[in-house]
């Protein structure tokens, strides 16, 4: 996506087009890349994972939050089990650190009982009811009022955007065509084919279309003349704490859930920082990612109810994400459309969508077969991506060898997260040429200085590697230009 100048009328012909390169679309694309079929993955943003998948809790859930009647529960249980193998294949940071649900009074403890029973019914592996003593054994930083809780050892944490990047990389390696800045504005169906038009004039022809458009799945469904439904954006605000914080727990801490959400969590991220949040607020504007002053106090209060040592001075960033909720039931809507031909709906993928996504990939593959799509396995499918060294994982002695092979690992660009020039160049060469794309791929600019020291160096590397001019450098595509003039 180095250039925005896509040829209008450029026509791509495939068997299956997937709209939306978030975690669902990415996992569907990768699943299909194992078969002899032509697949295009269409993304309206400048990079993959820039929508719902960019900003969420990054939890691989434990399978006890929802009852067995929901499709999302079945896919959550299955998806969770798929993560270990995916990590070996796709080399993304993942830690099965476990989840604790913290009960602060006897009333809440009754609900823990319910969650435990529900988890057992769902088939969640290894879940455990915990006494107060057991809770403090598992998590010494807990608030002293804790009376007990639930332990789900199978839960874990990932960096959601990094996971999507790896999944897409694998899909592309196996032949999927990724079309970025492809905003679907119009579609027609003729002669067994969908003709899908982008805002910039590009066209994709596909026999089958999968609607994995996240917050805009309702709009895309309408464009294809499929079912009418409404996606409600539900905002969640988060605060990111410096890795130096004393409030980092060993496991993901959940409060006892409320009716609308799983509550505000304290999350030890897989990269060592701590995330607190999210709030849950239904809004109207699907592009409203603003944060609000009154929410910080709420989030800190809630987080401190579980971990009293959470401190405002540790905050290094605030952000918000939107959950694409399909109300009132809140379940996933994954099915063959009854209104539009050869059209698969993948909508309402809110929590536990990240956990479920690998299973959604399988499920949609089966739906496509059911819809008549012929899928035969590819002989040369390679599930592995090339592992990229990360200098932060190396001791000085190991680094010595790595630097001998590629000296650019010795040039540390991001001091806070310890990211080298070689890693940033790898991100750029993998097609991540916005500042946010590089941030999500490498972690550079994600630490305590938030890019204050390194962003100009990254801008220079993007220009050097791509030949882009300074005024083409953006934060995250479109008009998010960083520099406005040259001296």
């Amino acid at each position: 996506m180095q250039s925005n100048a896509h040829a209008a009328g450029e026509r791509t012909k495939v068997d299956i087009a997937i709209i939306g390169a978030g975690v669902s679309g990415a996992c569907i694309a990768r699943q299909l890349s194992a078969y002899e079929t032509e697949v295009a993955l269409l993304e309206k943003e400048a990079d993959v994972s820039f929508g719902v998948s960019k900003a969420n809790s990054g939890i691989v859930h434990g399978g006890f939050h929802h009852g067995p009647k929901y499709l999302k529960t079945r896919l959550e249980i299955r998806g969770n089990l798929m993560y270990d193998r995916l990590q070996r294949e796709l080399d993304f940071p993942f830690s099965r650190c476990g989840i604790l649900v913290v009960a602060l009074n006897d009333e809440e403890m009754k609900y823990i009982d319910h969650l435990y029973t529900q988890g057992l019914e769902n088939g969640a592996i290894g879940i455990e009811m915990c006494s107060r003593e057991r809770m403090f054994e598992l998590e010494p930083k807990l608030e002293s009022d804790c009376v007990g809780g639930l332990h789900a050892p199978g839960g874990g944490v990932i960096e959601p955007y990094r996971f999507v990047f790896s999944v897409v990389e694998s899909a592309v390696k196996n032949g999927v065509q990724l079309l970025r800045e492809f905003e679907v504005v119009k579609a027609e169906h003729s002669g067994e084919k969908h003709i899908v038009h982008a805002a910039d004039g590009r066209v994709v022809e596909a026999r089958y279309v999968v609607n994995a458009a996240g917050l805009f799945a309702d709009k895309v469904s309408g464009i294809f003349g499929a079912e009418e439904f409404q996606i409600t954006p539900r905002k969640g605000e988060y605060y990111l704490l410096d890795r130096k914080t004393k409030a980092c727990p060993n496991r993901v801490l959940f409060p006892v859930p409320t009716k609308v959400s799983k509550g505000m969590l304290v999350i030890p991220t897989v990269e060592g920082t701590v995330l607190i949040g999210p709030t849950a607020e239904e809004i109207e504007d699907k592009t409203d990612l603003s944060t609000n002053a009154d929410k910080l106090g709420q989030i800190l209060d809630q987080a401190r109810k579980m971990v009293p040592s959470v401190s405002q001075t540790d905050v290094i960033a605030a952000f918000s994400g939107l959950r694409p909720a399909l109300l009132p039931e809140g379940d996933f809507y994954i099915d063959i459309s009854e209104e539009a031909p050869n059209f698969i709906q993948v909508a309402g993928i809110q929590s536990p969508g990240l956990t479920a996504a690998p299973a959604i990939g399988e499920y949609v593959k089966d739906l496509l077969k059911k819809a008549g799509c012929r899928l035969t396995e590819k002989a040369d499918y390679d599930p592995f991506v090339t592992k990229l060294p990360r200098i932060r994982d190396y001791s000085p002695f190991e680094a010595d060898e790595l630097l001998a092979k590629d000296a650019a690992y010795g040039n540390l660009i991001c001091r806070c997260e310890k990211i080298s020039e070689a890693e940033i160049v790898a991100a750029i060469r993998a097609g991540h040429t916005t500042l946010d794309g590089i941030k999500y791929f490498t972690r550079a600019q994600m630490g305590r200085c938030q890019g204050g020291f390194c962003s100009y160096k990254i801008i220079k590397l993007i220009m050097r590697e791509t030949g882009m001019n300074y005024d083409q450098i953006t934060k995250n595509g479109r008009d998010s230009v960083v520099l406005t003039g040259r001296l």
Partner: protein
Amino acid sequence: MHERTYDVAVIGGGAAGMAAAVEVRRQGLSCAIVERENQLGGILMQCIHNGFGVQEFKKELSGPEFAEEFMDMVADAGTDVFLSTTVDSIEESEQGKELYCYSRKNGVVKLNAQAVILAMGCRERNRGNIRTPGTRPAGVFTAGLAQRLVNVEGYIPGKNVVIVGSGDIGLIMARRMTWVGAKVHGVVEIQPYPAGLTRNIVQCLNDFEIPLYLSHVVSRIEGKNRVEKVTVSPLVNGIPDEDKSFEIPCDTLLLSVGLVPENELSENAGVEISPITSGAVVDSTMMTSVPGIFSCGNVLHVHDLADYAAEEARRTGAYAVAWLQNKKPTRQLRIKAGANVRYVSPGMINPELPDKLYLRTLIVKNNAQLVMKLNNNIVKERKLSHVQPSEMVSVKLTKKDVEHWKAESDSILEVSVQ
């Protein structure tokens, strides 16, 4: 792995690092400076305004000129300099310290040193630290990053600018952005008084008719892709007053909201950090809680002037040499920050070898009085014509000051401002 051995290793090649290294070399010990950028000078190199050097060189210089004076001294003193080299960790060894350093040119380099001087400087506080709500568009920069972009890289970060914080970098960037053709719509300061030097208020704002909004905050940032506007709110009893808030359309927000000593390397080496200064806790010889590791300049506490940082660093260089020569203080008294004093640095004093103290007040006051008490008896007083938190106060103690002190080993020197 390359390996080199020195008496003293200095981490950071800005004003403090260079001054410390020059002093170590002047006293005849071997010394290396490790600097992560591709040249010495640190942040001085982007500070192309003048006002540097009045204390150190008795002349007014720009940042790069000030740095060049020290670069010449570093070269003349025969100091080894490792450029484009980042210190990854400091380890204890039987011989002293081992520094593991990464660079493109030399790979991993291990530096052995008897003593280490920390002079890594500070970083800017950012939007997350002050928790400004709103969207997260392009166009929000720390003032120092904007300064780097304009003065070193040659890029203009925006056309219509609002600046948060009236610290010196913010004020200087208000003028600089005006000079490169941008319109600066205002400087917003949370405190009821400006944080920067008076001369900068006059020369950078008043001369260009840039409004200064005291007791105001930017309470919201808006814009989908690039900043489109900010909401500015007056503070009433410390809370933004929504009714009196107003919007300023702009495409750029520069943040000059404070500096924090950058001590992650120090902490990993076991150095105790003060929660007040975010710098190391040091004794009267600028030595940290880890024997053989010293700290000076902005990594110790944030200074107002590079001249002060250099002066402090020169003394630190001398203390490191003395420590290597086994000249250690026999007695040190703890210094306590008393009424209206945020901190005093260093936190100890050697009554046989009194030295300079730097302190910051918590109050704004004209005709204030500095009072030093030893065991509750006043031992020194000094008039201060004006104090405010953003202006560091320096106190030079002489032998004459301390000769009448009746200090026990557990005596505490309390420094307060009234």
